[in-house]
């Protein structure tokens, strides 16, 4: 009987010792000497840090135009289909909480991963820092206008240079907006000539809940052209945007949401046919009643 009691106590002692040992081990491992991760690879980064890394790689791609280098940087993240990851992140980051430049970079990198390098697009983006996207357009923020040519190569380190930007105050307080040719330092040749308006169509699509200005730009061969800068002007404001920022809708596609009661004039920065007098207009859609219609403009090179 006494021996059995001693055996029972012995088992409890062992278990108690084990528990105390585990506690001491955890205290030692978590508090006294916690693991320090060093010399890790980007693949082990936390998902939000990976997203930051991806966005930075996209911003660097915008600067260098080096797609191979961007791919190498994305490969080290080892998260599967890099095109899918970048385009998914680009879509997720278009919620207005992330820097516009990074969102733009992600969109363009996604497009480049799908279609190959986009020198025209990069040139347009690089030479127009932070295009305004507000409809007020009344600030006196200087607008940097550049049209210098940049030679993008596939070398590991691009040697692109650009001229000193010309800073020109934005003047947009005139009662009626006029389309004023922007001064350029050097002419930017457009292979195939200026874009010509081929089609202007009013669309009454119940799937479009907002009045859109939809633009599609194609080259002489009918291929979509990304990176074409579009300038929209209205009474008291202007906006600049680019084709190709929504690659899922086409590399030559761009759109702009119109405001009610505002008349817009539009032209492509590279020249071509200006379009004026566009307004948001309601229409009667079958089965959907009265909705906002959209304008579809198609430009192509002759």
């Amino acid at each position, binding site marked *: 009987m006494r021996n059995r009691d001693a055996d029972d106590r012995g088992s409890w002692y062992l278990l108690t010792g084990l528990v105390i040992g585990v506690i001491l081990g955890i205290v030692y491992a978590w508090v006294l000497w916690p693991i320090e991760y060093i010399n890790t690879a980007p693949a*082990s*980064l936390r998902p939000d*840090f990976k997203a930051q890394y991806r966005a*930075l790689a996209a*911003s660097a791609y*915008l*600067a260098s135009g080096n797609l191979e280098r961007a791919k190498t940087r994305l490969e080290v993240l080892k998260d599967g289909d890099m095109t899918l990851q970048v385009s998914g992140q680009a879509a997720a980051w278009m919620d207005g909480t992330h820097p516009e430049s990074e969102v733009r970079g992600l969109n363009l990198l996604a497009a480049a991963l799908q279609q190959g390098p986009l020198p025209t697009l990069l040139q347009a983006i690089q030479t127009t*820092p932070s295009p305004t996207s507000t409809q007020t357009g009344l600030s006196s923020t200087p607008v940097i206008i550049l049209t210098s040519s940049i030679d993008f190569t596939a070398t590991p380190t691009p040697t692109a240079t650009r001229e000193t930007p010309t800073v020109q105050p934005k003047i947009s307080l005139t009662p009626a907006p006029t389309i004023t040719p922007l001064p350029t330092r050097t002419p930017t040749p457009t292979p195939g000539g200026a874009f010509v308006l081929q089609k202007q169509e009013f669309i009454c699509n119940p799937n479009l809940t907002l009045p859109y200005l939809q633009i599609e730009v194609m080259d002489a061969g009918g291929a979509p052209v990304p990176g074409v800068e579009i300038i929209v002007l209205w009474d008291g404001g202007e906006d600049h945007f680019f084709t190709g920022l929504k690659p899922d809708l086409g590399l030559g596609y761009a759109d702009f949401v119109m405001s009610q009661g505002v008349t817009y004039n539009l032209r492509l920065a590279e020249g071509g046919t200006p379009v004026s007098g566009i307004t948001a207009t309601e229409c009667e859609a079958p089965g959907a009643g009265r909705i906002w219609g959209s304008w579809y403009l198609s430009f192509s090179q002759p």
Partner: protein
Amino acid sequence: MIGIGAAIGLVYGWFINPVEYVNTAPNSLRKDYKADYILMVAEAYKVEQNLDIAIRRLALLGEEAPIDMVSQAMATAVEYQYDPTDLVLMQTLADGLRTWYPGSPEVP
């Protein structure tokens, strides 16, 4: 017996089922990855010319002074024989950081 058990444990831990690091932070990156990260910051800075954004990006690498991070990255870049134009980009970023203080106007 303890030695045999320890050996089995090491073989298992090192070769059969080695530790996989997950959810790490950028400050734990190997120095060549850090250098490339800083090169990315420098490349983006070349176009954006925004030191606040550059510093926000560098801050992910730790609490060290940004200029020190860039200096170390440049040393790594020299060690790994980066292209001279990459070094120029990093130097440009370093030059910008030397003149920066919070809230200062951007250096053109």
